Structures are given as structure tokens and as C-alpha cells.
């Protein structure tokens, strides 16, 4: 346990000193503020565009903005935050393969699974803190300007998206142990998400796929209920755990 904590501390220090924590902090706070800001500015934007729209035959009537618009923005923006997160962290293993820094740690008797465990923990921690910070900021602004009660099953919709993020992290870790360069990590992770998205177009299988968890809008509008997500949640959780298990097995045999 002591050795795991020591490696975890090293990972956190690295994230801090390399400026990644600062970057991710700014990113998630910015997205958190942007969601309500864009919603708040929509009427003004429409007003500015009214003349142009009138010329093309559209009339702008009174625009009624609610917390709903802000939450729709939230689910529209959070994928971008996740992409930025994965791009930034895709080298968390590969950078060490390239520089050879892990060799000295491992020849000191550090068990290999602890490397996977520490790096996964740091990724999960950063994603969780960033994601819920973004959520809390949007929630607070929405509560101030409008009323959050209008969005149905809000905590659940936020929770399933967070789980989707964890699933993507497990894929990043898996491909980090399978590949040696971070291009491989990005292509692998992106590829699996893409396959899940494409398969999601088939109605019969869509409810079992991890990408269903990104559909927060259907939940807040009440088109779907939390129990419609149960199957996808279980499968996502199971595949994430499987991915991390395979990562450990694979990393134990990896030639460094």
C-alpha cells in the first residue's frame, strides 16, 4: 500500500507540475460557466440576428429561456471536455515507455500492477473532480437565474455521463498497455467509442451500449426514464472493469 501511495503521489505531482491540473481546471470551469452563459445570451443573440432572419422570412418571437437550455448546452459541451481530457492524458503511459523512466522504478521492486492502479486512479480522480466541478458551476448558475427543477432526473443524467467518462478512461488505460505510442492509444480509444456510436443507430442494441449514457437530454426531457439506462450502465461498468483487468495482465507481460 505504501509503495502504491508513493507512486500515486509521484503521478499527482507530475500532473500538477506539468500544468495539466491547471489546464484541466480552467477547461472544466470555463465549460461550467459557458453552459448557462450561452443559454442566457441566446435571446440577445436572436435579437441581434432578428433583422437578418426577417430578411429570409423568419420572424423572431419572444425567446423563452429556462434551465433546460443550459443543461442541453452542458450535454453538448461535455464531450468536448472529455476529448480534451483524453488528448491531454493519452501519453500518461506512453511518455514513460519512450523515456524509459519506468524501468528504474520497476527494477526497484515496484509491482507492475501498481503502476496501472496509480495511473488509473489519477485519471479517474481528475475526471471526477473536473466533471463534477463543471456540473456544480452550471447547476449553481442555473439555480440562480432559473429553476433546476424543470429538468427531470437531473442527477441521474449527470451520473450516467460521468460513468461514460470512466468507461472512456478505462479504454485509454487499456490501449496504453497495448500500444507503445500515444497515437495508438487515441486511435484505439476513439475507434471503440466510434463503433459503439455506430452500433447505437440500431434501435435493438442501442440500449445495451455505453454510448447510450451520453444521451442526457432524453432523461432531462423525460423521454426516457432512469431504468432505461440500467442495462447500458451494467454493461459499461462490466466492460470498464474488464478493460482495467486486461490492462493489468497485459502490463505484467509488457516488454519495456
Amino acid at each position: 500500500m505504501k509503495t502504491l501511495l508513493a507512486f500515486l503521489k509521484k503521478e499527482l505531482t507530475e500532473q500538477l507540475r506539468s500544468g495539466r491540473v491547471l489546464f484541466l481546471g480552467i477547461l472544466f470551469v470555463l465549460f461550467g460557466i459557458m453552459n448557462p452563459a450561452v443559454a442566457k445570451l441566446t435571446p440577445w443573440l436572436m435579437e441581434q440576428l432578428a433583422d437578418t432572419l426577417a430578411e429570409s422570412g423568419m420572424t423572431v418571437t419572444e425567446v423563452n429561456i429556462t434551465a433546460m437550455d443550459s443543461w442541453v448546452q452542458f450535454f453538448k459541451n461535455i464531450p468536448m471536455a472529455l476529448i480534451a481530457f483524453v488528448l491531454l492524458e493519452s501519453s500518461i503511459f506512453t511518455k514513460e515507455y519512450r523515456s524509459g523512466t519506468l524501468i528504474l522504478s520497476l527494477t526497484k521492486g515496484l509491482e507492475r500492477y501498481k503502476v496501472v492502479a496509480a495511473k488509473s486512479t489519477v485519471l479517474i480522480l481528475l475526471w471526477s473532480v473536473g466533471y463534477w466541478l463543471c456540473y456544480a458551476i452550471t447547476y449553481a448558475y442555473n439555480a440562480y437565474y432559473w429553476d433546476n427543477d424543470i429538468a427531470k432526473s437531473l442527477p441521474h443524467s449527470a451520473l450516467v455521463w460521468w460513468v461514460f467518462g470512466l468507461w472512456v478512461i478505462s479504454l485509454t488505460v487499456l490501449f496504453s498497455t497495448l500500444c507503445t505510442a500515444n497515437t495508438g492509444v487515441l486511435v484505439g480509444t476513439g475507434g471503440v467509442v466510434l463503433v459503439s456510436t455506430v452500433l447505437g443507430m440500431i434501435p435493438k442494441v442501442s440500449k445495451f451500449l455505453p454510448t447510450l449514457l451520453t444521451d442526457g437530454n432524453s432523461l432531462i426531457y423525460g423521454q426516457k426514464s432512469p431504468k432505461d439506462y440500467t442495462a447500458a450502465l451494467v454493461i459499461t461498468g462490466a466492460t470498464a472493469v474488464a478493460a482495467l483487468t486486461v490492462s493489468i495482465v497485459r502490463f505484467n507481460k509488457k516488454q519495456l
Partner: protein
Amino acid sequence: MDMLRISGLRKRFGDKEVLRGLDLTVPENSIFGFIGQNGAGKTTTMKSVLGLLKADGGEILVNGERVVYGQTATNRHIGYLPDVPEFYSFMTAPEYLDFCGAIGGMDKRETSKRRDELLELVGLREETHRVGGFSRGMKQRLGIAQALLARPKLLICDEPTSALDPLGRKEILDILLAVREQTTVLFSTHILTDVERICTDVAFLHGGTVRVQGTLGEIKSRFGQDEYLLETDSEAHLTAITGAFPAVRRGTGNQLICSVKDTPAFEVLGFVSAHRIPLVKWERVEPTLETMFMEVIES
């Protein structure tokens, strides 16, 4: 007791067979010079000992325990310095040693004490910059400090001096000499003068196997051609000697070299004495590692 025993080690990369049944024995408390040309398989051998490479065949015992690839428990006996050691550039030298102690499961107080001792030994006590700004020599010295932190029984250094300037080389060799009391040192190199300076034992690696191994003295006597160098003060004397012993070769200046297998040394000395030839010098020619190495790789 042998600190390291390798028998029949084989390793192939694609169609290139790097190690073809390598046998090596490193006795305890020796400074062992592992000599070979670039690409001879020195690093492959060392990485196999550390369990970082999966060997295709053979057995490696460290302190009597078998080395297993992947989760390598025998590494607790080993301190390792790679040829180009890389550290986390965002840490300072003391921070890195503290990290090494912690992941090696060392006691915190023991780590601090050892850290200060070793930073003193390698001359990095006053260094406050992060490792990212270190020169090659400084990294090499920090590399030795981290390798020695847990008081390993075996210190493995992969070409520790190859990339350094003469001053840096001297510093590293002095440190290796200084730690001899504490540990067995195995270091690979192709710089033969380094070996002659500090090693007690050597092995020549060529063509994927160890061709010759033993203590420096043993090897020298085995390869020693038993030659004597004779120097006199005039050309006339030289001609007199070569006239009597045609097998004696001319050296530089007024020197002659006589090989014992062609011309018994005492006969030459007898001739010198009988003809009252003044001797400037009479000495036994010590074979150099270089000549021995050349002989090994040419055979």
C-alpha cells in the same frame, strides 16, 4: 558464493541471434568488467538479468534465486544504472531518491539518511535544480546514487562511462571503486582502460557467448605471451644480440623484444653477461587488455 550465475542464456531478436548460450559467473565482492563491442549483447544480457527481457532459453540466478521475467523478485538484490538513465524531470535529486526509497518499500528515516550519504558521495549534495536541467554526467551520478539507495548486493551498470568526458569518466570510476566495499559491481563497457583501472574480474563477450572469463590476473597470465623487453645503449650491441638470437625482434629505439617460446630468456641474459653488454632495461612485457581482446575476437 557467486552473486550472479548465468547459464546457457539465449535471446533472438527477429532473425538475429544476439545471445547463443551465454555463461557468466560473477563472484561476490568483485568489480566485474563485462567487455564487448557495440551490439555484442551486453545490454541484452543485463536486461535479462533484471527481468526486463524475456530470454528464449537458459537460466539466471541472482544471489542463488532464479530470475523470473515480468514480476522480478530478484530485483530487490540489484541496483541498476542504465546506459542513459532517465529520471522524472520535474523532480529534484533529493525528491527522486525519496521517491525511489518509497517505491522500494524503504523506511522513511533510513531513506533520508541514505539519500544524504549518497548525494554527498556522488557530489550532488548542493544541487537544488530539477533533474530536467541536469547534464549527462550529473544524471549518471544521480543514476549511481539511486542504484545504491537500497544497499543492493549487486550493482549493474550498463556502459556507465561511455557517454562521458574524461573528467566525468574519472568521477564515475572513482565512485565505483569507492562502493566496492559495499557491493558487487558488474559493469559493461567497451572502454578497456576503464576495466584495467578498476576491475578485479573480466569477461569478453563476442559472437553471443562469453569467450573468456576470469580474474584480471588469471586472464593476463593466460594470454600473456611471456615476452621480455631488452634495451641497451648502442646499435652495435643490438646487432650482436640479434646475430646470436635470430628470433629476437627489434622494438622501438634501442629495444629488443624476445619471446620466451622462441628464445629462452636466460640464454639471452647469459649472452648479455658473457659479452658484458650494458643493459639499460630488462622487463617483462605485460599484455594489455586491448591485445587480449583483439586476440579473442580474431580467434
